[in-house]
């Protein structure tokens, strides 16, 4: 016998993400879901951003990694509260993993919570965690072909941070094509060119981010 189901597969995750979002709203905290490939510079960008903004606003971090606590230790050194989630193999964070650690973060004291997702250009784009905004870090060493190879990630991201811009003279990457394809996939995407090594462009990014909450 045939039974109609007609249900979104990720409905359970989306319901939990809505619950998280309500908790964030009630606590008055702005939540950023930071995504990007392994090695793009997500944690470096976060460290630099925290150091620029922590005197002006209160920031907390949830670190998502398959294993290890290296990233959480780096964030801990900046002096802001951080919780590490180890997904034990899973390639993305989901809403349930986030809701399980929310009691360990002083949400009410925060202006902004950054959730650093597992390094991956595919899966994190599919799973809402209750964020107000998604942003992605792409290092220019990854190549200009990435927007068209991983379109969903670019379509889901409000901001695109192009990291390692100091390496531009040494690379064959066509940054105009990268920008053009990202904008074609997502008209209105905000693009920031930064170098976490030299500090170039970081003020502009931090200013924009701090103005969102």
């Amino acid at each position, binding site marked *: *016998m*045939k*039974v*109609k*189901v*007609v*249900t*979104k*597969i*990720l*409905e*359970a*995750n989306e319901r939990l993400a809505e619950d998280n979002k309500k908790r964030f709203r009630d606590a008055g905290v702005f939540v950023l879901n930071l995504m990007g490939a392994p090695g793009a510079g997500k944690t470096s960008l976060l460290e630099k951003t925290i150091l620029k903004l922590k005197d002006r606003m209160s920031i907390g971090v949830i670190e998502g990694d398959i294993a290890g606590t290296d990233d959480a230790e780096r964030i801990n050194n900046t002096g802001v509260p951080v919780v590490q989630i180890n997904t034990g193999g*899973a*390639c*993305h964070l*989901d809403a349930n993993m986030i809701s399980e650690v929310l009691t360990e973060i002083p949400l009410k004291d925060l202006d902004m919570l950054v959730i650093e997702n597992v390094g991956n250009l*595919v*899966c994190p*784009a*599919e*799973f809402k965690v209750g964020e107000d905004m998604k942003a992605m870090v792409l290092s220019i060493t990854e190549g200009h072909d990435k927007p*068209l190879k991983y*379109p*969903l990630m670019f379509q889901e991201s409000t901001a695109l941070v192009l990291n390692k811009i100091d390496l531009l003279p040494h690379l064959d990457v066509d940054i105009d094509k990268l920008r053009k*394809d990202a904008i*074609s*996939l997502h008209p209105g995407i905000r693009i920031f060119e930064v170098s976490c090594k030299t500090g170039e462009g970081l003020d502009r990014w931090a200013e924009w981010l701090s103005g969102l909450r």
Partner: protein
Amino acid sequence: MHEASIALGILDIVINRCHAEGYRSIDSVTLRIGRAAGIMPEALLFTFDVAKSDSPAGDAKLLIDLVPLGGHCSGCEDDFEVEGTYVLNCPKCGSPTFQIRKGYEMEIVDMEVT
């Protein structure tokens, strides 16, 4: 490999329905998956087969109806479909103004039960 999470999500939904409505087992499940939804059908079939064992869906077949990416162009006022996973310009007239209308689906349509 988020297909494993997707497979578990599907099983959760259909097994709950199966229990709630008093059926004994699930024979097949039909999905509608958009080509731009970021799902690899082969990986989903594989992970579903691993995850379904020892459940009322233990013998269930997964049927995937793939939906091409398509939309409506404001330039030529026509509907279009493409083979790939993104659209930068209308494939018929080249206009960059269009609305995507399908290709991101991720739904369970129905299931065959006993």
